[in-house]
Structures are given as structure tokens and as C-alpha cells.
């Protein structure tokens, strides 16, 4: 700890900070622009000027930038010093000379850091009489809007985009007061993290283009703490609602998970909630083959209950995108033996295996923050930028850890961003990526290895064996893999905090090999962390609930045992081949679908019950790390929409079930789940109970300045209606409630007096960049067993030589398009690729196929024609098919299949 003196008062702060960070950490106000807690200091904006004294006796001192001043023991500054104040006001005056005076009509108004800082410095009178400089704006694509005239040249955007996220298509141009941030030409920003510019920019240069389509001021947004539903990482978010529509997603800081940033899928995927395919009313089909007709809730519920009541055996198909509570309610309704997980057989095996590894391996699961802190990483299996984007951003930070130590030796503090970069230049720490073909993260890797999944697994087994001879050996390794083994071993054992990251790429062997590597590291005294990706927001939660996959569910119907099914938030056509699902739905007889979005499965249901999305419901998701995280409804549902668990409870009540009678709130479900399964015992404690109050008040979802409270429903009634009841949480759908800081799990928005922008977060953290006050929310449910003495996995796969004419089809994930719900958001949909078949240049040449030619593909019981995309990094003998494009392609990859050029009608050998 260091003792610093600010305004003649002593404070104790953690060592290694700068004075700006330290001053903000102890709760003082000091304006700033260019500094960012995740990106450090550069000393450009000169906004955080203070008077710095040499020692306790110095009376004169000199102006210095707090962000560039180390907070050493005895450092003494004055923020209140008159000259420092004047200087800070001058900085604003210079900035405002070039800044439009259009706050009332600017998108950023009301949550603008520049506004806040202007008020904080006291500058309020314009002396500058010259012309303001102007720029031409660029079309940066469907997600981010560009308005350069507002720019204050703080360099935050380019530092995030290039230095933090390693983007290459965005830069800073020009000099003097004509500095320009943008692309060389108009065009879609290529970084998967471009949306963070919206929050990084201290003013309105970069704003959310999707918000612009249905604009609302921050102070008019009803918000609540939520969790992203678009991958398995579980980033914390703050969705905002107005007039019944979701308007935007902002990041919700969680020191152990997403920190300051989220990915573009997470930020811009929300529009499915407002989409045309939303189900707002129940739908019933009274007899087979008839048109489905809208029905009121009671009627639909009655019909569903009748259908289920008549059935001899009802099975339930759960969902990895539904809450724990919804899945548990379904499991309770149909009984443990009749509950099926609702994911493909392969995915289910992978999910269960991942869970076994996490519980049996001595390696602890890595949080997102752990991955960013790691100083050596081995990534195996998939393109994490596409499947779990924030993991990729974390890995991009991990490669900076080893070079940081070099800078530290030169006595350059880690917050001195430019100093560190100048010292380490392009040097990167060790990151090794083994994947089926090139990934978006390869530019950050020290070395890459591209091979079929079995060979990726074999490389892993070989690394594990080299680490610990008691793990199984790999008899013959491909020549290009052999030198890698030693290099990877050296990197991992030379690191202080190595992490092994694995996505399955559909292969259990790849997961097992990753587990062996992590275990071998731990056994040899290198405490490694293990990070296994999960495909969807509650895949891990679903795996924890147990049960079986989809195939046994289909089997139960084929065998004639089951004749009714309840399908929870799941479009089965995305889970299994169309023929199998068709047959299943045909055979089963009674189908009840509970979902928020219409789809092919819902279209074939006898009864469709409209469910709430994440935005209209409360519940818990368990992320890939095993962290249970509570999300809260942001808005009340429209129409007859109910939370899935409530529909299921009502179905159970209709069937006369007594065990759910006590289920009045989501907390009752959590308590039942905690009682039923010991692993969920902590659930009731992961967030404050619904009865929690501060000074007798609930936590207000609406800001204190929320406008139109008495007018919004005046077209219906001039009497102000009471706010909708919320029995599930301590939050209230009103501005009347507690506006201060609640416990971290309940933070509905970051706001503090004088801090209207996202920078208000400073006031919510125990220390800048550290945990939220009271600790980061969420609770890890899965930990390694105390005596983790599990054996090494022994089943090393053999090197597969493809047979003639056979290709190994592997999945190609896409951040935009592969995930079901975000793909329904128009902005995301615009960025999604068209379906294709990816070929290696050699194979394309061999089959006389060029880019965009049609190729006939036959794999896993599916055949069709797809345009060719030539992928330079794809090894010969493999074909990449994009994942998740409904109705396009097989669902269980990798698999062997065939390829034909339809023009010459001949099959193509290797």
C-alpha cells in the first residue's frame, strides 16, 4: 500500500497505480478523457491536471497530469489548486471550441462524459468566435454510427480498436485540430468488438446505430441487470427499454467476467426481442392438419392440459437457451426420467464430458478475467472469436502479459500504455492455436497448427505426455506437429499462470486432450487453469440438470412409449436433421411448444404458449465457467406472454400437481431446485431476495429523470396506473424507488450524481478496475473436487487417413449468423455470411471449382448445393460448412461426406 496526499488529506491506496486512478479509487472527482482503466494512460488530453508537490515541504509545486504521475508512497497533489482548476477549465474550453453546441439534439446528450466533465470543470461561457472545424462522416456499417464533428481527439477509440482489440481497419489520420478517426474508406468495421466504441467514446462520435432506429435518452430507459444470451460466456449486460420495446444493450461491468467490454453479437443481437417473429399470443390447433388459430391464455392452457392429461407418457425437451428455472420446471412437470436436454446427441455428450472434466480435473476453471491475466495460452479446437468472442478479446490481452514484465524491468509501470508499447514493440507472449483451419485470433498467436480434430487431439495428448510421462503417449505424430510439442511445453511450463482453452469443435477427443494437458501441468507444479467453451447461454446449466440428449427423446416416441411432448424454448430443426424432427413431431401426437420466437417447431405444435425472453423474465444462467448468474426482467411482457416456468407451473397446477402450488415467484423455483439437487444449493444466495429493500425502498428500474411517467398511458386513461407488480425481484418498474447504489447483483444502470455517462462505473467499484463494491456478482457452482485424483484420459485417437472421395466436413462458426436469436436482429443479419462450402485451394483446383461455383455436398444424411468459398488455411481433405444456418446443411459435424462438381458429374478423389 502507498500513502498518498490529496488536497492535504492522506489516503491509503494499492501500489502500482497512477494518481488519477488512485484519486478516483478513493472516491474523489477528477475529470479525464484519454485515460481508460482497461487501457491505461497516455497523457494526451491534459484534462486531469493537478498541482504536484515534490514533498511535504514544497509549497510551489507544478502542474502535472495525474494520469502520468505514479501514486508512490508520499506523492502529494492538490486537485483543488486554483491554477490546476483554471487549467482544467481551459482544456474544456479548447475542446468546446471545436465541439458542436448541439447537446439537446445530440444522441449522446444525457450520458455524455464530455457534458459531465464540462460541468465538473465549471467552464460555461464561450469566448472562441472562430469557425468550428468539420469533417465528413463515414458509413461504418449497420451497427456503429459515425459523427466526427463531435470528436475531441482523445485517442480512446483508436487505442481500443487497434491496441486493445487488435483491429486493423480503423486508424487515426491527420494532425493538429484535424485529427480524424475512421477507416481508409467507408465500410463495415471489421472488428467483432466495434460496438465498444459506443461506450469508449467520451462523447457522441460513435453511437449505437440500432438505437438510432428507435432512439431513447438514457434517462428515459428502463433498465435492469441482465446476462447476455448469445453465447456461453455469460457477459453481464444492461438492456434498456422504452414503450415496450428493447432499445439497446450496454455493458454491465463484472470484474471477473466481461470487465469493461462486450462483443458485437452481445450488444446488437437484442432486436430479436422486438422482432416480427415474437410470439405474443397463444395459438392452438384443435385437430391435426387444421390451421393454428390464436387463442386466449386460459383456453390454450386448458387445451394443453387436456392433451397432456390424455397422454400415456409425456416427455419434456428442455433448452440450453432457457433459464435454469424454466428447465427445472419442465423437469418437475414431466418427471426426471422424462426430461431430455434438447440438444443434439453429440453436443450433449460434449457438454457432459466438459462438466466431468471441470469437476474431476485439478485445474480450476478460468473466468474471462483469468484468461486475460494468463501469460501463456493454448487454444484448441475452435475459432473462439466466432463462438465465444469475449474469450478471444481476453486472449488478446493475455499475450500482453509476458511483455509487460519486460517493461516492468525497465521500470515502466503497466498503466503507462505508450511507454509499454514503445518498450515491447510488437512482442507478444505465448499463445498457441490448434484449429481445423485459420481463426480470427491467429494474428495474435505465436504459432498455429491446422489439422482435423483427431490430430488436434493427438497434439494435445502429446503435449500432456511430454509434460507428464504417466499420461498416455501418442505413437506417431505428424511431422509438422512434432517441433510444436516441445515449444508448447516450454511456453506453458515457463508461465506463471498458464491457461488451456478448448472448444470441442465437435470432438470429444479434443476436450479429453485439453483435460490431460491441464492436469499434467497441475501435477507437475504449474497450476494451470482450464477454460472450456459452452455453445449457449445456459448449456452448462442444462448439463448440470442432467438427463439425456435428443435422440433418446425421439426414441421414446418411436418406441411408442411417449405420445406427448412439451418443447421448451427450442426449435428442434436446429438440433437434428429435418427428416428426424418431422418424423418425431408427426409421430408424437400432442405437441406443446413454449417459446418466445416463432419457428418451424412452433409451426407444427398443437399448442403454442408465448414465452418471455430474457428481457421480460427473471432467472439464472450458468456460463461456461460454471458461474451461476441472475438476470432480471427489464420490461413487463406484452400480450399473453409469461415466463416459461410460469406456463409450466400453470400446466402442472392444471394437472392437479400439489408440489408446485408453492411456486409463486422465481425464488420459490430456485429454492425447490436447490433442495432437489445439491449442486444448486447456493442458488437462493446468488442475489438479494425479492424482499430486499434499501431504506424501505425497492431498486428503481427507471432513472430519477424518467420522463412521461404520468403521460405514457394517458391515451388509455388519464389516471396514472400503478407500476406493474414484480414479485420476483427487489426491483420495481418505476422511478419511485432507490436510486443509489444497490448490491452489485442488482445494479440497474451506472449513474452517480455528476456522472451521467458509463464512466459513472468508477463510483461502483471498490477500486478502479477492481471488483464492484461488495464483490462481483455471480457464484461459481462447479469447482474441482478437493481430491481431484482423476486418471488421465487414455483414448488417444488414431490419425485418420481419409478414404478416396471422402472429405471430413468440419463446422465453421460465425459470430454473426451462427447463433439463433441474434441472427434475427436486422443489423446482425446483414453481417451474416450466406451459406457456403469451404474448400482448400488444392481441393478446389482438383475439382475444377472456383470461388462462388456451386458444389454438390452430401454429408450426414443431408445433401444440397452450396456456393464454394475457398479457404486458404483449410488443410486439403476437409470441407468447412457454416454452423447454424437453419435448414442448410447437416447438424452433426465433424462427419465424413462427399463433394461433387455438378458440372462435370464426377466425384472428386483426393
Amino acid at each position, binding site marked *: 500500500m502507498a500513502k498518498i496526499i490529496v488536497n492535504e488529506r492522506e489516503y491509503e491506496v494499492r501500489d502500482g497505480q497512477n494518481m488519477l486512478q488512485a484519486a478516483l479509487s478513493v472516491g474523489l472527482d477528477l475529470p479525464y478523457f484519454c485515460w481508460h482503466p482497461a487501457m491505461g494512460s*497516455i*497523457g*494526451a*488530453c*491534459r*484534462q486531469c*491536471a493537478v498541482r504536484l508537490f515534490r514533498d511535504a515541504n514544497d509549497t510551489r509545486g*507544478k*502542474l*502535472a497530469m495525474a494520469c*502520468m504521475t505514479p501514486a508512490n508512497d508520499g506523492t502529494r497533489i492538490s486537485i483543488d489548486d486554483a491554477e490546476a482548476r483554471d*487549467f482544467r477549465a*481551459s*482544456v474544456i*474550453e*479548447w*475542446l468546446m*471550441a*471545436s465541439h458542436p453546441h448541439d447537446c439537446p439534439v445530440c444522441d449522446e446528450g444525457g450520458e455524455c462524459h464530455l457534458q459531465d466533465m464540462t460541468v465538473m470543470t465549471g467552464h460555461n461561457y464561450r*469566448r*472562441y*468566435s*472562430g469557425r468550428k472545424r468539420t469533417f465528413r462522416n463515414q458509413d461504418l456499417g449497420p451497427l456503429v454510427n459515425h459523427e466526427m464533428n463531435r470528436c*475531441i*481527439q482523445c*485517442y480512446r477509440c483508436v487505442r481500443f480498436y487497434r491496441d486493445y482489440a487488435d483491429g486493423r481497419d480503423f486508424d*487515426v489520420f*491527420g*494532425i*493538429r*485540430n*484535424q*485529427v480524424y478517426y475512421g477507416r481508409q474508406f467507408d465500410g463495415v468495421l471489421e472488428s467483432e468488438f466495434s460496438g465498444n466504441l459506443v461506450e469508449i467514446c467520451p462523447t457522441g462520435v460513435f453511437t449505437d446505430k440500432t438505437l438510432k432506429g428507435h432512439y431513447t435518452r438514457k434517462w428515459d430507459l428502463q433498465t435492469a441487470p441482465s446476462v447476455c444470451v448469445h453465447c456461453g460466456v455469460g457477459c453481464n449486460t444492461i438492456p434498456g427499454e422504452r414503450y415496450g420495446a428493447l432499445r439497446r444493450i450496454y455493458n454491465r461491468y463484472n470484474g471477473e467476467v466481461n470487465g469493461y467490454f462486450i462483443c458485437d453479437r452481445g450488444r446488437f443481437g437484442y432486436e430479436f426481442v422486438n422482432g416480427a417473429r415474437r410470439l405474443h399470443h397463444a395459438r392452438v390447433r384443435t385437430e391435426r392438419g387444421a390451421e393454428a388459430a390464436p387463442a386466449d391464455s386460459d383456453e390454450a392452457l386448458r387445451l394443453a392440459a387436456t392433451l397432456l392429461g390424455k397422454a400415456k407418457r409425456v416427455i419434456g425437451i428442455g433448452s440450453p437457451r432457457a433459464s435454469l428455472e424454466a428447465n427445472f420446471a419442465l423437469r418437475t412437470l414431466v418427471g426426471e426420467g422424462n426430461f431430455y436436454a434438447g440438444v443434439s446427441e453429440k453436443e450433449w455428450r460434449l457438454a457432459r464430458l466438459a462438466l466431468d472434466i471441470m469437476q474431476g480435473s485439478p485445474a480450476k476453471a478460468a473466468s474471462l478475467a483469468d484468461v486475460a491475466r494468463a501469460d501463456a495460452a493454448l487454444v484448441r479446437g475452435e475459432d473462439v472469436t466466432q463462438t465465444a468472442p469475449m474469450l478471444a478479446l481476453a486472449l488478446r490481452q493475455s499475450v500482453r502479459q509476458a511483455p509487460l514484465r519486460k517493461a516492468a524491468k*525497465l*521500470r*515502466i509501470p503497466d498503466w*503507462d500504455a*505508450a*511507454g509499454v508499447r*514503445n*518498450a*515491447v*514493440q510488437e512482442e507478444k507472449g505465448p499463445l498457441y492455436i490448434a484449429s481445423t483451419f485459420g481463426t480470427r485470433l491467429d494474428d495474435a498467436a505465436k504459432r498455429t497448427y491446422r489439422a482435423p480434430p483427431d490430430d488436434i487431439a493427438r497434439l494435445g495428448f502429446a503435449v500432456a505426455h511430454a509434460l507428464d510421462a504417466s499420461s498416455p503417449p501418442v505413437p506417431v505424430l505428424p511431422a509438422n506437429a512434432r517441433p510444436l510439442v516441445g515449444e508448447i511445453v516450454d511456453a506453458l511450463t515457463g508461465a506463471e499462470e498458464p491457461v488451456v482453452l478448448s472448444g470441442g469443435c465437435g470432438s470429444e477427443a479434443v476436450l479429453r486432450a485439453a483435460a490431460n494437458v491441464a492436469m499434467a501441468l497441475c501435477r507437475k507444479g504449474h497450476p494451470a487453469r482450464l477454460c472450456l467453451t459452452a455453445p449457449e447461454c445456459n448449456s452448462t446449466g442444462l448439463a448440470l440438470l442432467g438427463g439425456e440428449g435428443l435422440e433418446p427423446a425421439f426414441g421414446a416416441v418411436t418406441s411408442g412409449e411417449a405420445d406427448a411432448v412439451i418443447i421448451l424454448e427450442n426449435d428442434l430443426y436446429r438440433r437434428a436433421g429435418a427428416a428426424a424432427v418431422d418424423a418425431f413431431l408427426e409421430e408424437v401426437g400432442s405437441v406443446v411448444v413454449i417459446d418466445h420466437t416463432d419457428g418451424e417447431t412452433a409451426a407444427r405444435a398443437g399448442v403454442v404458449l408465448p414465452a418471455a425472453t430474457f428481457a421480460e423474465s427473471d432467472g439464472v444462467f450458468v456460463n461456461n465457467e460454471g458461474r451461476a448468474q441472475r438476470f432480471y426482467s427489464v420490461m413487463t411482457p406484452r400480450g399473453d406472454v409469461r415466463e416459461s416456468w410460469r406456463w409450466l407451473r400453470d400446466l402442472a397446477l392444471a394437472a392437479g400437481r400439489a408440489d408446485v402450488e408453492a411456486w409463486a415467484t422465481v425464488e420459490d423455483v430456485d429454492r425447490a431446485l436447490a433442495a432437489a439437487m445439491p449442486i444448486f444449493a447456493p442458488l437462493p444466495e446468488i442475489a438479494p431476495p425479492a424482499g430486499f429493500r434499501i431504506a424501505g425502498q425497492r431498486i428503481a428500474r427507471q432513472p430519477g429523470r424518467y420522463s412521461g411517467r404520468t403521460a405514457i398511458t394517458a391515451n388509455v386513461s388519464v389516471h396514472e396506473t400503478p407500476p406493474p407488480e414484480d414479485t420476483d425481484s427487489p426491483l420495481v418498474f418505476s422511478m419511485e424507488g432507490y436510486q443509489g447504489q444497490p448490491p452489485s447483483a442488482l445494479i440497474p444502470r451506472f449513474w452517480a450524481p455528476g456522472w451521467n455517462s458509463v464512466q459513472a462505473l468508477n463510483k461502483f467499484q471498490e477500486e478502479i478496475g477492481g471488483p464492484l463494491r461488495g464483490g462481483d456478482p455471480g457464484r461459481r457452482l462447479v469447482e474441482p473436487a478437493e481430491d481431484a485424483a482423476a486418471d488421465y484420459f487414455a483414448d488417444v485417437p488414431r490419425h485418420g487417413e481419409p478414404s478416396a472421395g471422402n472429405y471430413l466436413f468440419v463446422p465453421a462458426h460465425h459470430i454473426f449468423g451462427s447463433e439463433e436469436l441474434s441472427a434475427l436482429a436486422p443489423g446482425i443479419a446483414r453481417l451474416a455470411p450466406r451459406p457456403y462450402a469451404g474448400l482448400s485451394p488444392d481441393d478446389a483446383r482438383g475439382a475444377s471449382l472456383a470461388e462462388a461455383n456451386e458444389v454438390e455436398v452430401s454429408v450426414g444424411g443431408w445433401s444440397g448445393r452450396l456456393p464454394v468459398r475457398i479457404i486458404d488455411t483449410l488443410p486439403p481433405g476437409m470441407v468447412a460448412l457454416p454452423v447454424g444456418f437453419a435448414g442448410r446443411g447437416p447438424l452433426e459435424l465433424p462427419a465424413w461426406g462427399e463433394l461433387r462438381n455438378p458440372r462435370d458429374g464426377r466425384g472428386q478423389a483426393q
Partner: protein
Amino acid sequence: METPLTGRIRLDKSPVDLHEYEQTGGYQGLRKALRMQPSEVIEMVKASNLRGRGGAGFPTGQKWSFIPAGEDAPKPKYVVANADEMEPGTFKDRVLMEGDPHGVIAGMIVASYAIGAEAAYIFLRREYGPSAVALAKAIAEARDAGYLGKDILGSGFNLEMHLHLSAGRYMCGEETGLINSLEGKRANPRDKPPYPALVGLWGKPTIVNNVETLSNVPHIIDKGADWYRGLGKTNDGGTKLYGVSGRVKKPGIWELPMGTTMRELLEEHAGGMQDGYKFRGLLPGGASTEFLIEEHLDAPLNFESLQQYGSRMGTGTMIILDDRKCPVAMQLNLQHFFAQESCGWCTPCWGGLQWVEQILRAMEAGEGEPGDIEVLDMHTKRLRMGHTFCALAPGAMEPLQSALVHFRDDFEEHVREKRCRWK
């Protein structure tokens, strides 16, 4: 009077070639240095009191001694000649590079030997075409003769030398901006510490020295520190390239003992003011120094003596303001330059300088407003060293602040009369 720097320069100003350079004792300093220990070379330069001729006057030997030495020192190390001579009114390095390029190169080789550098760069202002031609030819000659390359003169010392043409920014004259530019980055300044001696070009220990500074080095080694100190009239040793521009009879460049007075320069060497023009003031060493007036002319022009008048020698190339030129217009010209050349990194510089320029432009156009001079005053106080990221804006404020002292009446008249009387 000895003129080690310019003594070799031909009457027709064409570059001295290798043969002629060697004939007149060239590369003797280098030969001697290679027989010394590197640390002895540094000590000798320290003892000579040689100070940086780029304008800041930092002791050269001391700068070299900051470079980590020994087996564990980071490698490679670099020497960079700062030949980005862009200070308005300054044209001294050009004379050396065009006339005696081997003198610069010899200095760089000695400097490289002293700090153990493996590569040396000349960062040259792009507009200096003749310098580029002369230096390129001289580097080739030196390489062919074994002064560059592997095992120089059998000493075991290796050095490669490269000529780099700047893309043209005033900021490149600042050593950290220069380093960034040489790395292919924007010519923004870097924060110090770490200093380039520790973290310089491509993150490695680097010395950046001005061309004139380096040109002195071989002579110091050749003839000794005592001899060198004896050349100056005051404590600062050696000779200095002094220049005068403006409405004088004979504008030009002269190598004179360090500490020559401004009056001698103006009246003897530059031949005094042109007929019909009266002296009003001068900027002693380029655009970013403070105005001096008649009463200061007897001060010797060296690193220390002008501090008492709030100015500094800078590059030692004086710009003369006469009575028929508007001081506000001159200021506008200067401030336009500085505002144009602000790199856009720190707010006071990019925001302040463009405002200053805008006000001066308005004054010149007869659109000055009451309060404008106060805004200019404010900038001279706010844009100080330490307030801004680098010395560019504080340098820009030096002529402005002193003009507002010495020629305040002219500024006030512009605002009051709403016109420029020289127009």
C-alpha cells in the same frame, strides 16, 4: 580564428569528397577514437563541454553516458543524426551536410563506437535534396573505404549507416517524435521517462544528436577537450554556426567562437540593417525563442547568457524584425506554422494554437475584439512546459509572449483601430 566545422567547405559549396576529406585530416578523430576505450571517448566528449546544438543544449557526453553499457545491455543500440532541420529561420545543419558530409558521418561513427551502436540513421528533412545526394554519396564512399561495415579499420567494431528521408513534419525534430516516425508511426512525441537512451528506436537504447553536434565530435577526439573548450569565448566550449536572416545587408551563416555577441553578429557579420529599415527586435535562435530588443544586443549568444532575459540561444540563427514589418503579421506567420505543425496529440497544443492563430488572423483582418489580447495572454500562461505533452506549444508561446511584452502597443492598436497599419 579556427573554424573546424566549416573550414573544409569549398568556396563553391560543393561537397567535400572522401579524398579531400582525408587529405585535410579527415577521419583522424575516428582512427584515434577506435584506439581508445568507448568509455574514454565518452569522458573526452564530457570534458569538452560539448552541448547539443539542436537548441536544447543538453551536454552531449552526459547523454551518451546514459546508454546502458556492458555485456548485459540491451542490443542492438542505435545512433540517430537529427537532420530534420525544420525550425523556422534555421539553415545551419544544411550547410554542414551539403558542404562537408563526411564530417557528419565521422561524428556518427565515433558516437556509435562510444555507445556500442550497431546501426546509425540519418533522419533527413525531405526538402534537403542536395544534402541527401551528398550524404548518400559520402556514406557509399565511407563504406567502400572501410569506415563503415564490418570490422571498421581493423578495430572489430561494426556499424551500418542508413539515410532516411522524413515525410516532413516539424514534430520529427523532437527526438521522440523522430523515433516514432523512424519506426513508421505517427510523429507524436513520447512521454519521458523512459528516455530514448533506455527505450528508444524499436525499444532499444538510442542516442539522437543534432547534425552540428555530431560534426564537432571528430575534432574533439582529434585535438582534445582542452583545445575544444578553448575555442569558445565563454564557458560553453567550441565554435557555433550562427546565422542571421531578415532585412540585413548580408544575411548568412558564420562559424564563430561560442559566445559571440548578437551585436557583433548583426553589425559586423550581417553588415547591419538594410538602408531604410530600423531594427526592432530579434528571435535569437529560431522561431521558438523569445524576442530580444536593442538593449539586449551586447549579450553573448551562448546557452546560459540569454536566460536572464527570459530567452535562449536555441539554434543560434537569428531572425530580425524590422520597423516596416507588422509584428502581429509576423506573429500570425509563426503561429500559423506552429498550429499547422501541432501533431494533434495534446489538447492545449491542438486546441490552443489554432485559437491563437484564429485571433491573430482576425486582428490582421481588422476584426480583433476587446478581450482578444487577454486570450492570447492566457495561452502564453497555459501552454507551458509540463502543461503540454511536449515542447512544441511552449516553444510557440515564446515569441508570442515576448511580442506581447515588447510590441504590445501594436497588438492593442490592431484591436482599437480595427486595422493593420502596415497594410
